[in-house]
């Protein structure tokens, strides 16, 4: 027993849904019409489908929402929060490209929008598309965020270093966009859903054995996402599978972050060190 998780759990599961509505196409300068309309599916069908799925399974989840999408469909974003899920920030126009010194302005803009829509400030952030700079965490700290879920250099939560200082009131909850994200399989390799399910089950088996953090990333869109009945069905079956294991807890990311911050002795401080070899 590694004693790493709450309630002596063997493995923590975070189900995360990156909203990625029309912000995605709009940010790329595409009109969200016709073949560029996949993002519209998120608010119309994908998000309601996932809310129903999580309700059926009685599991909490985390939704990362671009500010633009919250402006376009505030009721849908409020419904997520009302259903008991965490809502984190995810760029304004899903800026997967570099925005230079505009970054703090955009982070603050989305923060203001989500605060208005939710009636309280978001405390978590995930990078849209992997972009991040030295300005990111500085700004998120100023806005009193407590977690970021964007890093790929660890399998477990860790305290990030900002400007030479390790933050102890802010935790990184790493995300695995190579293997536990729907995009690479449905867009890059066009893998059939049944094979994606088998793959994710194997990912879970290995994470469970190590007592790790299993963070699933799906998008409620059509196209590269998992919004459709067939692909949401994969998530449904995966949750069924995970629930057959003893010692599993499903966590909202904000709750996991608070628990990690309250138990600082368990987590690495700063970048991985060679002591990992022991």
């Amino acid at each position, binding site marked *: 027993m590694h004693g790493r998780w709450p309630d002596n759990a063997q493995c923590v599961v975070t189900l995360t849904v990156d909203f990625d509505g029309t912000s995605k196409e709009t940010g790329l300068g595409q009109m969200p019409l016709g073949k560029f309309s996949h993002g519209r599916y998120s608010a119309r069908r994908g998000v309601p489908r996932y809310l129903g799925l999580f309700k059926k399974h009685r599991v909490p989840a985390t939704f990362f929402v671009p500010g633009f999408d919250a402006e376009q469909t505030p009721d849908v974003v409020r419904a997520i929060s009302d259903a008991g899920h965490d809502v984190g920030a995810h760029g304004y126009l899903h800026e997967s490209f570099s925005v230079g010194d505009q970054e703090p302005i955009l982070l603050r803009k989305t923060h203001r929008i989500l605060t208005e829509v939710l009636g309280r400030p978001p405390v978590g952030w995930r990078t849209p598309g*992997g972009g991040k700079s030295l300005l990111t965490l500085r700004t998120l700290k100023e806005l009193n965020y407590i977690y970021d879920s964007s890093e790929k250099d660890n399998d477990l939560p860790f305290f990030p270093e900002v400007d030479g200082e390790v933050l102890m009131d802010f935790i990184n909850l790493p995300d695995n966009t190579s293997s536990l994200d729907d995009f690479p399989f449905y867009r890059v*390799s066009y893998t059939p859903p049944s094979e994606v399910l088998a793959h994710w089950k*194997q990912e879970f088996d290995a994470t469970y054995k190590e007592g790790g953090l299993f963070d699933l990333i799906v998008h409620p869109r059509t196209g590269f996402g998992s919004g459709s009945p067939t692909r949401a069905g994969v998530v449904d079956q995966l949750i069924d599978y995970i629930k057959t294991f003893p010692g599993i807890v499903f966590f909202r990311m904000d709750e996991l972050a608070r628990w990690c911050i309250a138990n600082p002795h368990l987590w690495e401080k700063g970048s*991985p060190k060679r002591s*990992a070899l022991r």
Partner: protein
Amino acid sequence: MTTFTLSVNLHGCSVELREREAPELLGRYSYGKYLYFGIERILALLDRHTVKATFFVPGFEAVSDPGLIREVAAAGHEIAAHGYLLEDHSQLGEREPELLARAHDALCRATGQAPQGWRAPDGMLSRQTMRHLAALGYMYDSSFQDDDHPYRHAAEEGGLVEVPQNEMLIDATLFNARQTHDRVLKNWTEEFAGLQSEGCYGCMTLHPRPDYGVGRPSRIELLDTFLRHIRRAHPEVGFATCLEVARAAAA
């Protein structure tokens, strides 16, 4: 009888540092910092299977953490050269001899031994690379993908032994194409069976990374499954380092 090599390209932050400064290795540029987790798992797996491997190490990685390279060498694995900061050797021009020497010295200092083998970063060489390597005393190269057996390059091209790689047995080929674990395993086992049926040499190339390598727990399991399959289905297969393969070919 088939001879099989496990080789590891030790890609840490040297990959991202080609594009970004150290403090900015964040988000999609943070994968290289996973190095220690990946190396730990690969070393443990090699130990479990009692296989000695060849680690191709960029000079930069040996300078930034010589202790890590010594630990790999102390476990009985071969250390070979792999550029300084993963340069494109087809574009270095007159700077190439100097960079090859710099990478060479970095490995000599870290391990106390001169590397005998070299592998081109991203498989990119110039017409001069092999002659420069010969001048530095290298015995073999492992960058080409043009044979099923080791061979010797022409004397006017440096005369090194070639220990050829196999694209389908480079983990990054399939991971970059975002293949599922089951499809990767299927690709590897079918490729191996074909090599074995004709008594060919096989060189597998691994990376300790979480994106295009086997560093993550699920992918180490996948590699473990593949190695157990080889042992069971092809018990006659012998494992050898690149240097052992090169020496046998030169004899």
